[in-house]
């Protein structure tokens, strides 16, 4: 196989950090090559250099064995390199076809030739077996579909080498599977794919070769066939990692959270939670599994008071909290690790110490006189949380914005758990985190359970639900379609329920 990309001795520094330190990488024609590393290891930096978004301080790039200088993305595109970013860059109110041709639109005189655009899109969509509807608007299609549009966009510009930056971070399990098929078909038609990820399972399932990067340096390049998950994890993190969750038998107590016949609407005023009932006992983790968009999001918001409840009841320790404002729900002993840490969990422009009391800022411990805040004490509190929960930060005064995703999540978990709640609601607590941080979050949730607290876990990652939960409830179309004991749960059983319980979905 000829080498299509060769990066030699690439170094790139940012103030205070060396993101890439003498990295060499070679990618062969027609392979799926994974760049594996924890968040902040320097994978994206390296690919942004290849795509011309950054200029390297040192090093050389060869494309098809010819030395090139990629000073901006236009050069990269001309060389046949395309990149799909983690956060999509699509115009929401435009149609699929409009987005794909954007920037290189076919024209008829001075007008846009929309018919040709649609025909072109249909053509490449067929050629690469990436089914899309050219006429639907981006805002109406699923995230998985949007990703296809992004991939088609690069193909439309004649990309031979595709860089996919964390493509699975936003996808449901099914969509991940579909993406795998798409990538295989692209490779079979002669394309080369560089995949950035930190998910080990995907490396094993999707790649031909894998290059592991840690702290800006290449650790190793391996053939996927000749390695396994444990070896990859160790190389990525730099120490032995425990990928399975250790936990003792649960000692379930009395119900802490009771939800009865709960109904709630989504943002478009359609019923999203259609009469849900369940309970979570002290000392157990109840996991809610389900494909994204089946009402989990609305369910959590309804329980925590962030969304109006249309019907039904929510009780904490037998006390009704239905439709109470979030403030009262917090003070009745509910902690909430929100699914979107930037939107809900943190005020990014507040320093860490102010974030460390969000939701708890009326507590007597933090006040001086009656209305004033005792800032020296708050800082002390923040320093303690940072230490106990191993939040990596220079000090407690930096803005939350300055931390990496994993450390932001640690801060939120520290704040919520330190409140000593009866119930801890963890919504996608490990989204976008690396192996080390995931291990940490899981340990803390188990600790909560073992100390007799109730934990409600909502996750789109089936593995996570299965390994942490004591009981698993499956949500489909706004209803709980089944509750199974985790011991009896299999991926197949859950999969059937997640798809609505129809027998024909059986593999």
């Amino acid at each position, binding site marked *: 196989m000829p080498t299509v990309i060769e990066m030699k001795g690439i170094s790139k520094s940012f103030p205070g950090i060396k993101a890439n330190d003498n990295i060499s990488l070679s990618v062969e024609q027609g392979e799926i090559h994974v760049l594996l590393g924890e968040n902040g290891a320097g994978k994206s930096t390296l690919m942004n250099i290849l795509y011309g978004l950054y200029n390297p301080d040192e090093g050389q790039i060869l494309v098809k064995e010819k030395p090139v200088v990629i000073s901006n993305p236009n050069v990269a595109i001309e060389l046949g390199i395309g990149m799909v970013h983690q956060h999509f860059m699509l115009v929401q109110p435009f149609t699929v076809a409009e987005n794909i041709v954007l920037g290189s639109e076919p024209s008829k005189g001075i007008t846009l030739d929309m018919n040709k655009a649609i025909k072109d899109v249909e053509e490449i969509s067929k050629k690469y077996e990436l089914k899309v509807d050219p006429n639907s608007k981006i805002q109406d299609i699923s995230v998985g579909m949007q990703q296809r549009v992004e991939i088609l966009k690069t193909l439309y510009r004649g990309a031979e080498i595709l860089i996919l930056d964390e493509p699975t971070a936003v996808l449901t399990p099914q969509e991940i599977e579909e993406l795998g098929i798409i990538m295989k078909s692209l490779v079979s038609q002669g394309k080369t794919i560089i995949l950035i990820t930190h998910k080990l399972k995907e490396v094993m399932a999707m790649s031909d070769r894998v290059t592991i990067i840690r702290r800006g340096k290449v650790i190793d390049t391996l053939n996927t066939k000749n390695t396994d998950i444990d070896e990859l994890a160790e190389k990525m993190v730099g120490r032995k990692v425990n990928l399975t969750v250790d936990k003792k038998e649960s000692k379930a107590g009395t119900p802490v959270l009771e939800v009865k016949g709960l109904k709630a609407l989504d943002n478009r005023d359609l019923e999203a939670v259609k009469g849900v009932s369940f309970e979570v006992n002290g000392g157990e983790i109840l996991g809610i599994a389900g494909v994204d968009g089946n009402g989990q999001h609305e369910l959590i918001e309804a329980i925590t008071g*962030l969304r109006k409840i249309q019907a039904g009841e929510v009780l904490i320790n037998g006390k009704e909290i239905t439709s109470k404002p979030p403030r009262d729900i917090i003070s009745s002993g509910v902690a909430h690790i929100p699914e979107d840490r930037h*939107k809900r969990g943190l*005020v990014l422009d507040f320093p860490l110490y*102010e974030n460390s009391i969000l939701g708890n800022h009326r507590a007597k411990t933090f006040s001086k006189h009656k209305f004033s805040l005792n800032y020296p004490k708050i800082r002390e509190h923040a320093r303690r949380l940072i230490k106990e929960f191993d939040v990596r930060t220079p000090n407690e005064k930096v803005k939350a914005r300055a931390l990496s995703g994993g450390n932001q999540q640690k801060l939120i978990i520290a704040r919520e758990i330190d409140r000593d709640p009866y119930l801890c609601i963890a919504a996608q607590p490990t989204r976008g985190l690396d192996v080390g941080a995931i291990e940490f979050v899981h340990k803390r949730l188990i600790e909560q359970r073992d100390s007799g607290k109730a934990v409600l876990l909502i996750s789109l990652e089936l593995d996570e639900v299965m390994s942490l939960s004591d009981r698993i409830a499956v949500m489909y179309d706004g209803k709980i379609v089944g509750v199974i004991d985790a011991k009896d749960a299999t991926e197949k059983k859950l999969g059937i329920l997640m798809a609505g319980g129809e027998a024909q979905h059986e593999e």
Partner: protein
Amino acid sequence: MDLQKINVQKSERKENLDNLIKQLAYPLIAIITSFVVGGLLVAAFGSNPIVAYSAMLRGSLGDITSIGETLVITTYLILTGLSIAFGFRCGLFNIGAEGQFVMGAITAVWIGWGLKGLPPFLHVTLTLVGGALAGGFWGGFVGWLKARLGSHEVINGIMMNYIAVQLSNFWVRTSLNQDGKAFSVEIADSAKLWRFSETFSVFSKTRLSGGLFVAILVALVAYYVLNKTQKGFEIRAVGFNQHAAEYGGINVKNNIILAMFSAGLFAGLAGAIMTSAMQYRVNQLMGFTGFGMDGIAVALVGNNHPIGVIISALLFGILQKGGPMMQIEGIAKEVVFIVQGILILFVAANFVRIMHDKYKINKELKNSLNKREGK
């Protein structure tokens, strides 16, 4: 152990001071830069910038009287600047400060003229508090509209400005009219705020009043409320991220109303001080007074920080008071507006900070490169 604690506290206090200096340093450099650029412009128009600026300084700080009059303008600008800054900290643009100012002024006439026979201290306090509250409700209503109906505070603020001006004029022409003239009746002597000239004869020619101390005191209180109290924490949280605030059990709507009410209080107080300490009456308005609008610039240059607002209000006071003297020297007083414009441009665009950050990044890069070569 205790000693350690004290040391920690000490270093924290020092850090707070450092932060304050840092926060104020960028605007300060921006101010100096904009004066230099303004000077270059004056030179380009064929005048001598040194003559221009010295005229400006003479006009605004040349003698006790002009200092006093500069501080009169500063008094209003502190309060209207504070009004805008407070709104900004909650993520709101209180463009209605103008109308709140007018409502404060006219309400002060109602109270100052309507109530009779009160002891002076009580009467003055009632006049100021009443004017402030009128502004507060004027602003709070805009906040309520935003919180309950989601209508934008800028549009409603502008509309309320027009209503305030027309309402004030209506009263000036009818219930509060003075003998068919284009101004209102005069407030009672007991409602007049203490002026410097009553006690110190050097200030005899200026209208400088105790309002200055009121304004500074209010700014300090605003600083404390915003940065040291639970309410301030909530208001700032709403300002930065409403979703996170809601998640944290903070009532977003109430805080929006409260912030707009407080912003209105400050602007209304400014208007009340104008009535109670300077004009003793309200003139029929041909348009806006401009104090509310200047407050926007003051807040921007003061970095929305109450202490910064005091300093920036002083600066704008100097610019506005010094303008006419420049004209006497034969230099267009529009230069003052040009300097103001450049100033806002520099501060709002955070120009100095961006340049400084770029410089720092370059230096660090060079250092790290040099180090590597040294190896």
